[in-house]
């Protein structure tokens, strides 16, 4: 009897037309009714046809989650940005200086910063992320201690800095001195890690729009970072997200702030060239 019921259910399930519930939608992202954000753009030439259209992860979320990002009052990530602003104005370290003492109003001085990083730094002779630049200021000019990568205060200030670039297109330099870092990032992107032998591309290039267990797979674009995630109710840095992904392949991961993740950040940012900055965004 039980067996019969099961067969009927199976037959009904098989008769249903197959459709994907995880496809991206066609909504338009406008924050606070004024900042228009490009969330679907044509792929950059260096992608070599790997993606037919470049899409922000915002399109893969449901309407409620999408709406949270469209109003600063509803966006819990803005609480972090607000705290970041308080940190920006507070003097710290042996020099008694605050970020604001040199950089003034971040709405002016930090405009566009998030869109162009990671960037090759001539003086340091290496590729630097926004958080690395913040720590450089802290240790060299403020006489303060460097923040731990992707930890509370660092992520709040990064969210505040990102918020002043919202709507501006991702535009990272991948040629010249940045080229070797970009190549290294690309290699990591296509390397299969862990017991599950998954590369970034296995999910985010070959299977975006499909379900991964109960969730939608996006293209893994990073234009929305730092990201407020509903699952852990806090702002998450891009390196922490990379770490989470690699951990899920059951691999031993790199650390946030490591050379590998800095290179990967540049490469993944370059895959989203032209997408509008959303940070702090809201995701699952």
């Amino acid at each position, binding site marked *: 009897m039980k067996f019969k019921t099961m067969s009927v259910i199976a037959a009904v399930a098989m008769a249903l037309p197959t459709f994907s519930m995880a496809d991206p939608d066609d909504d338009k992202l406008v924050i606070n009714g004024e900042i228009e954000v490009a969330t679907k753009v044509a792929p950059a030439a260096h992608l070599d046809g790997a993606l037919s259209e470049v899409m922000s992860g915002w399109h893969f979320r449901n309407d409620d989650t999408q709406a949270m990002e469209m109003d600063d*009052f*509803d966006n*819990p990530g803005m*609480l972090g940005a607000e*705290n970041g602003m308080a940190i920006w104005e507070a003097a710290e370290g042996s020099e008694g200086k605050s970020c604001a003492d040199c950089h003034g109003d971040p709405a002016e001085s930090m405009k566009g910063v998030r869109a162009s990083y990671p960037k090759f730094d001539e003086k340091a002779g290496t590729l630097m992320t926004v958080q690395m630049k913040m720590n450089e200021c802290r240790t060299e000019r403020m006489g303060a201690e460097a923040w731990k990568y992707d930890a509370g205060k660092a992520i709040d200030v990064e969210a505040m800095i990102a918020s002043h670039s919202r709507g501006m297109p991702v535009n990272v330099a991948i040629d010249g001195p940045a080229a070797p870092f970009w190549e290294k990032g690309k290699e990591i992107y296509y390397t299969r890690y862990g017991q599950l032998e998954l590369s970034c591309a296995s999910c985010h290039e070959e299977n975006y729009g499909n379900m991964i267990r109960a969730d939608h797979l996006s293209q893994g674009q990073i234009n929305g970072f730092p990201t407020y995630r509903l699952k852990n*109710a806090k702002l998450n840095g891009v390196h922490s997200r990379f770490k989470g992904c690699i951990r899920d392949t059951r691999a031993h991961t790199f650390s946030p702030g490591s050379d590998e993740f800095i290179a990967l950040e540049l490469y993944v940012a370059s895959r989203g060239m032209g997408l509008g900055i959303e940070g702090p965004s809201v995701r699952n």
Partner: protein
Amino acid sequence: MASGVKPRVKAPKSASAGETVTIKTLISHKMESGLRKDKDGNLIPRSIINRFTCEFNGKSVIDVEMQPSISTNPYFEFEATIPEAGDMKLTWYDDDGSVYEDSKSIAVG
């Protein structure tokens, strides 16, 4: 003692008499449930906002009793009918006895 608590309210500056408006409120608060343990195994004491009220010209709009397991930074969105111009007073009550207040004036016209 909860730290970093800050109430925020979004309400329209004006409304027509009898209009129903949407009020959004959020208070940053860690909302410690009292059920979690720290890394040494000791219970972290409960520290939540246990009551939230909204009054318009002294008349109650909503009065909410809150329990543990409401997540961090509690957010309330509700509708209120504005009969005349006046002040909307919002109050949050903390477990530690602290009371946080905010108010918004709404004009009619």
